[in-house]
């Protein structure tokens, strides 16, 4: 015998591994062991196979690769004796899973073992099959398992065969129908193991096969009800007793089967009402086993067809659970109340106070459940008190819980705010408590709301000012506050627009500038904050003439910023403050009111926001300088900055507005763009040329922008810059700050440069879908510079004499397309073509120019109280989309 392959005993190996001081040492020991096991395998050493496999399993558990042992398992399984097979199957289950090819090699051995005369060997094979079988094995071995499922004797293998069947039908649902009768027969057995597995099998079969569902409902329901009743009434049975209840595990399996059988069937539900009532009222609840049964029973009652009395009983049980001192019970109660809320929200509302307490529980699992439940409980009537509770709790909650909590509060506040004052108040509170957890779109939305509440401007800016004094470490709060101070600075110092509820404060201009200065100089401020500060300073220079000099100094300080964008803005703004006093006040007028509808529409359309995603993560360049992506630029331009592609409000438009220059009549370029989708270029042209479009200067500006943007994956607006600039004749690669000054000063120079066509090509409308009762027309439009994306306006017209209600249009596209559906204009379609519904679809074609659009559509609506479903495929899209 080879002296090396005999190796150490398992116990010694474990001891050696345990004794290792370092990971490297451990690896060395394992490597040595693996080598000796391999040698032993290659010598086909029968005597030590057993020990080798045991060692391998230990090594596997430590996380080392053991694939070379897989074949060893197969060999052991193929050997005739029970001990070898036993360890072989154990190794197989530990070392392999269903995704490994090697598994196919074992199919034949398992097949032989399933037909073995020794029932324990059959048991081993069934167990392995149940635990790791793949779809292919399931197909190959299903007949054997089916035979074992019906095998008369011994009973013991039936339960294993039943669980094996569960695995098989999960892998290959088509096979379920073969097992229906055998599964139903299991429910007539006496042995609890067979009943448990039989009930589980039936439950799982119902999920994959409607035929099985129907069969069990017709043939087995009475039997199951009787089983459960007998079980509930059965006398003490020591073998199955758990804390005074006979076989709670079987109880639960039977209730789970009833859960499935009673779903959506009033008759079946009726049949089981009595027994459910009995279980719900008679079960002992002082031990976990009893509670587990009750919990399952409540789940079943909630799921089957309505029976008023039972539901009340169930909700009462949950109420009792909720007030339990046992954390587990409270957890499951919260879990179940989530489901109950859709059935009987009134009943759940009664427990609101208790649930709210659970949000403050020390246990994270309970807190999370409770918070989700509270979120579902909020409605118009209780939004205010609930929010107050949650906001109060925000102060003391754990840091790791703040993220979830903040997100939920923001969502509640946005959804249910009865008035703007309350909304702003709550948001200011949240921002000052947990501003760093607030998502970008939330504070963007807040700014939109603020601009839309002219009577609250003064109040808001003062409230934010006060909040920042207290919690300046919350960056998001600082951003919003600085933005507001920039816009409404004079209201801050002048105490304008005082509300009754407010305490007057005295803020001097210098103090307001202090705040912005601190924010821009704070080392933790990121690029977005600094950019907002810079714009605010520009605005303040006109609002606070007395501080203009100081502001100019602060702005000048940013001239040294390593971030190109900030540096550039600083120089531009410096020039505006210093040299253009006359036009300055006009330039820095307030932002026009941001359109709430557009904004919320854009948010609802979850357009992959290139800009907002890049906000948080500034890619670092190798020298450690934060690289300016498109974000800060667009941020300066568009504070809500999440979709630069939206036609009605591109970034440039905002900048245009921001500086308050109206050039449309003067400029031939921008003049055409008032109605057509604006693109940033025009606005920038406007900005830089202030008064007369100087194409030369603007093009160099464009080039500068494009050279910056070329290697970034920015799209839309910035692509426009790039594409336009390549179309212009000039290129200036050297960009110096002095040429920038020239740009701003250069009123005179003008040479005309062809500017690319900005409106996209037009496409004919098509009738996408027409049936006897409905007509769908598609109108197409494209945004310039973005040929991949098509905006489709679908128009639905009702041709029948009936009104359609609950009208829902759904569409699906192949993988190379991306589809985004915007909300429809309505859900009711008037009869006989007297009106229509429109809905916008946005399609991006990743294979633009190669493949044309295709789409499958499905339309659901209710006509004459009947649900109607129409579907079809649309392939008559015009070419070039």
């Amino acid at each position, binding site marked *: 015998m080879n002296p090396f392959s005999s190796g150490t005993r*398992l116990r010694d190996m*474990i001891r050696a591994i345990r004794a290792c001081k370092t990971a490297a040492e451990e690896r060395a020991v394992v490597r040595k062991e693996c080598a000796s096991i391999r040698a032993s395998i290659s010598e086909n050493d029968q005597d030590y196979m057993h*020990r080798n496999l*045991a060692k391998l*399993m*230990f090594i596997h*558990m430590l*996380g080392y*690769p053991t694939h070379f042992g897989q074949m060893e398992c197969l060999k052991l399984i193929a050997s005739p*004796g*029970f*001990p070898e097979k*036993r360890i072989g199957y*154990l190794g197989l*289950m*530990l070392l392999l*899973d269903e*995704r490994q090819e090697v598994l196919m090699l074992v199919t034949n051995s398992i097949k032989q073992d399933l037909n073995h005369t020794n029932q*324990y060997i059959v*048991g081993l094979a069934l*167990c392995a099959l*149940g*635990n790791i079988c793949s779809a292919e094995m399931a197909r190959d071995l299903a007949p054997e398992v089916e035979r074992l499922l019906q095998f008369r004797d011994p009973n*013991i293998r039936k*339960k*294993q065969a039943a*669980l*094996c069947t569960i*695995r098989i039908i999960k892998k290959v649902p088509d096979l379920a129908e073969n097992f229906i009768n055998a599964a139903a027969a299991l429910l007539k057995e006496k042995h*609890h*193991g067979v009943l*448990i*597995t039989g009930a*589980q099998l039936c439950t799982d079969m119902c999920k994959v096969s409607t035929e099985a569902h129907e069969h069990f409902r017709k043939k087995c329901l009475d039997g199951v009800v009787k089983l459960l009743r007998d079980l509930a009434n059965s006398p003490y049975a020591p*073998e*199955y007793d*758990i804390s005074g209840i006979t076989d*709670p*595990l079987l109880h*639960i*399996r039977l209730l*789970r089967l009833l859960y499935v059988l009673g779903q959506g069937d009033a008759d079946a539900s009726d049949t089981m009402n009595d027994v459910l009532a009995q279980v719900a009222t008679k079960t002992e609840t002082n031990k*976990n*086993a009893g*509670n*587990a049964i009750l*919990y*399952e029973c409540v789940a079943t009652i909630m799921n089957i067809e309505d029976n008023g009395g039972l539901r009340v009983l169930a909700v009462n049980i949950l109420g009792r659970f909720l007030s339990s001192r046992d*954390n*587990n*019970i*409270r*957890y*499951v109660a919260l*879990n179940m109340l989530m489901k109950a809320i859709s059935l009987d929200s009134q009943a759940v509302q009664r427990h609101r106070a208790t649930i709210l307490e659970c949000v403050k529980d020390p*246990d*994270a*699992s*309970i807190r*999370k459940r409770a918070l989700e439940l509270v979120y579902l409980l909020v409605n118009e009537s209780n939004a205010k008190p609930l929010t107050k509770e949650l906001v109060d709790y925000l102060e003391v909650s754990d840091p790791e819980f703040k993220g979830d909590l903040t997100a939920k509060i923001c969502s509640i506040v946005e959804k249910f705010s009865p008035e703007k004052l309350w909304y702003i108040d709550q948001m200011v509170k949240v921002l000052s408590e947990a501003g760093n957890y607030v998502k970008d779109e939330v504070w963007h939305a807040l700014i939109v709301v603020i601009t839309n509440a002219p009577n609250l401007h003064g109040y808001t800016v003062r409230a934010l000012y006060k909040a920042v004094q207290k919690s300046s470490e919350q960056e998001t709060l600082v951003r919003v506050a600085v933005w507001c101070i920039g816009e409404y600075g004079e209201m801050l110092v002048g105490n304008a627009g005082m509300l009754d509820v407010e305490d007057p404060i005295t803020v001097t201009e210098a103090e307001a500038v202090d705040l912005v200065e601190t924010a821009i100089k704070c080392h933790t401020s990121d690029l977005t904050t600094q950019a907002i500060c810079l714009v605010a300073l520009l605005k303040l220079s006109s609002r606070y003439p007395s501080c203009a000099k100081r502001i100019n100094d602060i702005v000048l300080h940013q001239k040294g910023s390593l971030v190109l964008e900030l540096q550039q803005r600083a120089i531009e703004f410096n020039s505006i403050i210093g040299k253009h006093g006359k036009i300055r006040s006009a330039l820095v007028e307030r932002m026009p009111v941001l359109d709430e509808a557009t904004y919320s529409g854009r948010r609802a359309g979850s357009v992959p926001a290139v800009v907002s995603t890049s906000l948080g993560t500034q890619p670092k360049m190798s020298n450690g300088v934060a690289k300016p992506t498109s974000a800060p630029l667009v941020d300066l331009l568009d504070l809500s900055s999440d979709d630069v592609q939206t036609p009605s409000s591109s970034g440039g438009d905002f900048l245009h507005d921001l500086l308050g220059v109206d050039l449309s009549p003067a400029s031939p370029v921008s003049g055409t763009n008032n109605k057509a989708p604006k693109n940033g270029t025009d606005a920038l042209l406007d900005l830089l040329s202030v008064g007369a479009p100087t194409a030369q200067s603007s093009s160099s500006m464009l080039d500068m922008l494009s050279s910056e943007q070329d290697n970034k994956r920015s799209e839309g607006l910035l692509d426009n810059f790039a594409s336009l600039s390549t179309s212009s004749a000039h290129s200036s690669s050297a960009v110096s700050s002095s040429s920038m000054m020239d740009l701003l000063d250069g009123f005179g120079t003008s040479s005309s440069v062809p500017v690319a066509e900005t409106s996209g090509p037009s496409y004919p409308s098509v009738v996408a879908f027409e049936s006897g009762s409905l007509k769908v027309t598609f109108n197409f439009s494209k945004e310039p510079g973005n040929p991949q994306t098509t905006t489709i306006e679908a128009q639905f017209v009702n041709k029948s004499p009936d009104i359609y209600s609950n009208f829902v249009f759904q569409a699906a596209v192949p993988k190379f397309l991306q589809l985004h559906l915007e909300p429809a204009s309505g859900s009711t379609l008037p009869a006989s073509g007297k009106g229509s519904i429109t809905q916008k679809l946005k399609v991006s074609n990743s294979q633009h120019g190669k493949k044309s659009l295709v789409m499958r559509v499905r339309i659901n609506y209710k006509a004459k109280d009947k649900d109607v479903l129409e579907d079809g495929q649309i392939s008559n899209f015009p070419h070039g989309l």
Partner: protein
Amino acid sequence: MIHFVLLISRQGKVRLTKWYSPYSQKERTKVIRELSGMILTRAPKLCNFVEWRGYKVVYKRYASLYFCMCIDQDDNELEVLEIIHHFVEILDRYFGSVCELDLIFNFHKLPRAQAYYILDEILIAGELQESSKKTVARLIATQDSLVEAAKEQASSISNMIAQATK
């Protein structure tokens, strides 16, 4: 359905793993690391459930050993606690005392890999197989005796050969 069963010692050493859903070796290591981090740090008296990647993990501590089972969102958590207890009681009966469980899983007895065999008699395909402790004990005992018998036979044959070749 139970997706996997983990036994972790209080020090974070893994004592037993059984996977009923496919996880690659890498994923397994990651799952174990994540879960032991979550579960071992939880204070006593908190509830026995943690939510993890859209699943729930039910755990219970016996002596210095944590028994964890991962289940679907809508499975019955309380029932799984019963199943864990069921498993522990059977182990207890087989090996002697619960307090020594950690020792048992110290792997000194793994050559016979009893804990795995017992688990296989309780769960297959992530579903419960048998609710009677007596039945499980009987099945394991019969199979153990089969192994013993085979061993004896083997040694008696080798004795006979030794005798014959003397």
